Structure formats: C-alpha cells, structure tokens
C-alpha cells in the first residue's frame, strides 16, 4: 500500500464535494461583496434558509415531481424497449419508422403540453405524458442499435445451425442490447425529469415547476431558488441511481470493452 497513492485516491473521491462547496462559497462571496439584491440573486445562505423555512411545501412538491417523472419514465422504458426491439427486428420496419420517430423527436415537447392540457385537463397527467414523450426516444434508438450492431458472423454461425430469427434474438440480440439499454436509461431519466417540470410550469397545480411559477409571481425569490435547488438535488439523485444500476447490470460489457482496448 502506497501512502501518496492512497491520498490521491481520497482526493479524487472527495473532489465532487470540494468543487460543489467551492461553488457555493464563490456564489456567497459574490453576493456579499457586490451587495447583490436578493431579489435578483439570493445568496446560498438565503436559499438554504428558505429551504428550511419552506421545507414542507418544497418536500410535498418534490414528491409530486418525483412520482410524475417516474411514472412517465416507466411508461417510456416499457414502450421504448418494445418499440426498439420491433425496430431492430426488421430493416423494413426500421426504414419505415425511423423518419417518423426523428420527426416526432424534433418537435419541442413544450409545444405539445397545451394539446395535452386540452385533452386531459390541468394536473398530473400532462406532466406524466410529457415526461414519457420526451424520454422514450433515446431508449428506442439504443435498443435498436444494440440489435443492429450484432456481428454478422455470429448470425451466420447460428443460422447455419438452423436457428430461427427468434432464437437469434433471444440468445444474442436481446442480451447484447442490455448495456445499450442501461446507458440510455440515465439519459432518459434526466429528460423525463425535464419534461415533467416543463409541463408543471405551464399547466399544473402541484410539483416543483408549479411551486416555482407560483413563488415567482408572488416575488418570493428565495423560494424560487429553493425550488431550483430541490430540482438539482432530485436530478442528480436520479441520474446517480441509474448510473449505478448501469454499472451493476452490465459489468461484462465494461470488462470486455476494456480487454478489447488493451
């Protein structure tokens, strides 16, 4: 065991914390030094004070955003996997559906929210659907890519044994999409979160987006920032969770790509 190596490893582990703390200190210093109007940019101390003061509403609205995001994300995962497998299954379907999906994906989802509100009214349903609509695309693309990049030689080996297309999918295709799927989940969860909050900002009566719009129109700047902080924390937590799941589920993919690189 080497002492200086130990220390540098420690430093590497702590560095995210150090950088975050440093950023807050800088923010605080700027606010105090230039006497920034708390109405324009409240100092972190004021933001945290607001979080403590309003912890009940912040927690309640965070919870609403969390579950709408998760609900939309869950639908996106189920739908994305199924559609990805279908698209990756046949070239004809791939050719036919791809432009449609790209077109669909390039529509800004904010523009869809008013439509959803007309259909489903103000509330959680538009938030869930926006989260779903914004996040399923990367899942579809990744799952389809996992299937499409199968080594043709392996397919030949199996076909020469009389394997049906279904066999090849089950034995090779689906297992090999796993790392692609899990890589897409951490992107998709962040997108779902964005979708839910955007929808809440426009048309909802609960959730962090709603809380911030309300606080903004009441000129409660520290509460707006408390909402922002809650958003950041929730976003980081969800990303970290899925990054961890990815690492756990697809260890072989990391190993084998490492050995291929070496």
């Amino acid at each position, binding site marked *: 065991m080497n002492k200086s190596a130990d220390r540098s490893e420690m430093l590497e582990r702590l560095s995210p914390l150090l950088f975050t703390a440093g950023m807050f200190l800088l923010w605080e210093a700027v606010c105090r030094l230039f006497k920034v109007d708390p109405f324009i940019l409240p100092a972190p101390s004021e933001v945290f004070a607001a979080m403590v003061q309003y912890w009940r509403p912040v927690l309640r609205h965070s919870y609403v955003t969390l579950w709408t995001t998760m609900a939309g994300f869950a639908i996106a995962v189920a739908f994305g996997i199924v559609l990805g497998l279908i698209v990756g299954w046949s070239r004809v379907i791939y050719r036919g559906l791809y432009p449609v999906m790209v077109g669909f994906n390039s529509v800004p989802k904010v523009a869809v929210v008013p439509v959803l509100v007309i259909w489903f009214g103000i509330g959680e349903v538009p938030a869930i659907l926006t989260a779903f609509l914004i996040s399923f695309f990367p899942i579809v693309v990744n799952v389809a890519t996992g299937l499409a990049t199968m080594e043709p030689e392996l397919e030949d*080996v199996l*076909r*020469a044994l*009389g*394997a049906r297309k279904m066999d090849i999918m089950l034995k090779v295709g689906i297992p090999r999409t796993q790392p692609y799927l899990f890589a897409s989940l951490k992107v998709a969860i962040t997108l779902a979160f964005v979708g839910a909050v955007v929808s809440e900002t426009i048309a909802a009566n609960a959730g962090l987006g709603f809380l911030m719009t309300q606080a903004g129109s009441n000129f409660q700047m520290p509460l707006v920032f408390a909402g922002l902080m809650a958003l950041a924390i929730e976003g980081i937590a969800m990303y970290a969770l899925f990054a961890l799941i990815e690492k756990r589920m697809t260890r072989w993919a990391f190993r084998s790509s490492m050995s291929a690189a070496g």
Partner: protein
Amino acid sequence: MSAFVEIDGVSLTYRGATGDVPALAGTTLSVARGEFAAVVGPSGCGKSTLMKLVTGLVPPTLGRVALAGQAVDGPVKLAGMAFQNPSLLPWRNVRDNVLLPLEVVEPHRHRFRAERRQYKAQADELLATVGLAGFAERFPWELSGGMQQRVSLCRALIHQPALLMLDEPFAALDAFTREELWCVLRDVWHKIGFTVILVTHDLREATFLSDTVHVMSARPGRIVTSRLVDLPRPRDLAICYEPDFTAIVHELRSRIAEVRQA
C-alpha cells in the same frame, strides 16, 4: 467415395447500390464425406461467399449446391462454423459459449434442459482436448486471442457436425499458436472424422492439414486447380520441412501467382 458437398457450375452475383458484383462464376467443386478440403486463392475471390453457399446462407444465382445428395435451398441446420474473429458472447462463460449450438440445433434443443449435465460434461471434455481444461468457468475477456479461437473451434464442434466450415480461423494468431492449433484440429478430425472445408491464405496450413487443396481464380472466382496432397497420415509438424511438402507448397504458390496475374 461419394461426394458429400457438391457445387456444380455455381455463379453468384451480389446486387449492390453501385452495381452488381460477380463474386463467383462457374465454380465446380466436390468434397467427399470425411475429406479435409482446403480452399486458397487471392483476396476477394469469393472464398467466404463459397462458405455461405455451402451452408445455404445465400442462394446461388446460377447452378446447384447439394449436401449429402440433397439440394441446398436454405440454411443447412447442421454445419459448424468458425471465423477469423472468435465472436464469443461476452456475457456467457466459456462453457456456455461452447454449449450455444446445442440450445439451437435439432435434436439437442429439445433435450437441452433435461440433459444439461451430460452436455456440460461433453463441453468440458471437448475443451480439454483443445488444451483448455479448467477454463470452463472463465469469461471470454479473461482469455488470450488464441484461447478464444480454441473456444470458437469447440463451439463449432460441440454438436458433432457432419460438416465443419472454417474461414481463416487461424489468420489472426501468431505462428506458434497457429501451428499448435493445426495439430489440435488435425487430432480432432482424426478422432471424429467429419468433413472439413477450410479457407486459408496460408499455403503451409492448407498443405499440412488437407487431403485436397483447391485453388481459386481472381474474382469472379472459380476453382482452377485441385491438388491432391498425398502425404502420409498422421502428419507431424516436422513434415513441413520435408522436400515433398515444400514442393507442394511451391507448386500452389506459383499457381496462385499465375491466377493473380491473369
């Protein structure tokens, strides 16, 4: 000896976006049951295409391919194949990689669950014959390139195929490992007695292993010479330095030089 593999006046043209590519033109070749045949020829002359024709993975444009007296009109459902790239499944350990064909090919696929233990023993035995005893539980990324190629060979042999198709299986290996695997292949072939078609660029490899070496012309390919290798068996690596052996290699070499010029 009756012909096991019969290719009769076969032509094959690939249809591409930038025009048609004639890969084979009037190829005729026959391989007896239990014979070890090698195919050599300039790069791009259609050797891999020939393998796909014999296994029924692509249909000929013209002519007839027959296997064991039956016309081939679809994947043959019995051939073992191995390529230059081992293409093992990284999420399966060595044994489960070797067992893959048994999960697919008739009649084993229906017995697989019930007789798993016996199949496992069979896989371990085969791994031992190629010098991989004790590696069954390892994963592909833990193996060297030569070891992976041995596993690939075992995968091609596990269901005791009547026909083994090898497309430059040793091309990516160093000279020592390659010669070692020649001997492995020679011994397995002596023991089981299947029919082999081996595509290679190495004329010594072709001469050492096979009963007949078929030389193909430049693209569009056809067989221009079939040279009987009448060296006594069993052959030892030392034979590579005997005058009879080198004479055959030289003859083949000059023949290929001729067809490349033409």
